[in-house]
């Protein structure tokens, strides 16, 4: 079974799905994500699905449950790069993914996460070498 890599980027986790999604791939991703959020104390999860062109109701629901799970662990989820066909399919399936934030691409998604992170203030520094990017780009996005 293929596993989707979970990358740590600042205080966010980046998941870029480049493979065809099978049910068990998504289930494994959900488990991995839960563990990694706890392990890294991530504040945000960014799921890039721009390479996904087929979804079914199960995978659609998994996006929603990943978001619910992340929120429980105090991390915000942004799903980015959804293709038009996928969006139409999800709507036709009656899945509007409430509680999931969306963005057109990874760049805009990161901006949302950064803005959300800034609103909540800096994280207690539990790791000395942790360089949280409270960067200059975040200010502009927060103003938007």
């Amino acid at each position, binding site marked *: 079974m293929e596993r989707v890599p979970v990358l740590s980027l600042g205080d966010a986790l980046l998941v870029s799905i480049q493979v065809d999604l099978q049910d068990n791939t998504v289930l494994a991703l959900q488990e991995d994500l839960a563990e990694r959020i706890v392990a890294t104390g991530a504040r945000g999860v960014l799921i890039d699905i721009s390479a996904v062109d087929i979804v079914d109701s199960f995978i659609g629901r998994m996006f929603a449950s990943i978001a619910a799970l992340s929120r429980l662990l105090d991390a915000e989820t942004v*799903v980015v790069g959804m*293709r*038009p066909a*996928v*969006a*139409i399919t999800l709507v036709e399936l009656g899945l509007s993914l409430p509680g999931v*934030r*969306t963005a*057109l*691409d990874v760049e805009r998604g990161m901006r949302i996460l950064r803005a959300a992170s800034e609103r909540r203030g800096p994280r207690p520094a539990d790791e000395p070498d942790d360089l949280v990017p409270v960067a200059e780009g975040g200010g502009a996005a927060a103003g938007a």
Partner: protein
Amino acid sequence: MAQADGGRVRALLRSGDKVLRRWVEAAEVPLRGRLTTGELGRTCSDLLAVLVEASDGGLDVTSDAYAGARGFLAELSRDWARRGFSPSETASAVFALKEALFAAADEDGGGDLTTVLEASRWVDALGLVTFESFARAREQVISEQAEQLLELTTPVVKLWEGVVAVPLIGTLDSARTQIVMEKLLQTLVDTGSEHAIIDITGVPAVDTEVAQHLLKTVVAARLMGAECTISGIRPQIAQTIVTLGIEFGDITTKSSLADALLHAMRSTGVEVVRRAGSR
């Protein structure tokens, strides 16, 4: 009798100018002089020549031997339709051949029933060919127009950096909404726009189905990370929507496209101000 080779009918067809003359005479009646005798005569003699040749292969109009004859009849039907003849008039002109054949059979020594039936069936089939090709030509025109309509009425225009709009015109049905939806969402991806405006000023009526289509589009745009505003809601339409009990929920609606554009620009951080001193 069913598989008759049509030898008698063939013989009648070849019985000379009399058949052609009688045919032209009989065909003139339903056309009521809208075609000159000369032209009708030319058409009939051309058609007769094609039919004589085709009938060598039997009397089955659907057979390969009749490919040329069918083409001729189709062309005739199209041509006459363009000149304002109804399909019945065209078909009557072909059916007139029957009278000519019956008369020829009569002269030929009291044509027997088999020959008359054969000839009648054969001419009927030819008449139907003109009718069918008329209907086919019509249907082709209709489907072409429907396609053109779909292409024409769904432009997606860019109003501002990051703001695109679809001015919807005409009645919305499922097929059209699907195309609008796909085109709008694709444009959002292609241009990286975060705002979409659906303007329904040109939509004559909004019922529950149309509203459902609009809501779906808005939700799909949201799933992709873009904000969608609905604008151009006329007073009567607003009333209908309220009367029908349609809930637009947290979807932004504006009465005019200008308002929607201003809203979109403001939410991207652009402010419009009037320069001091100008009016």
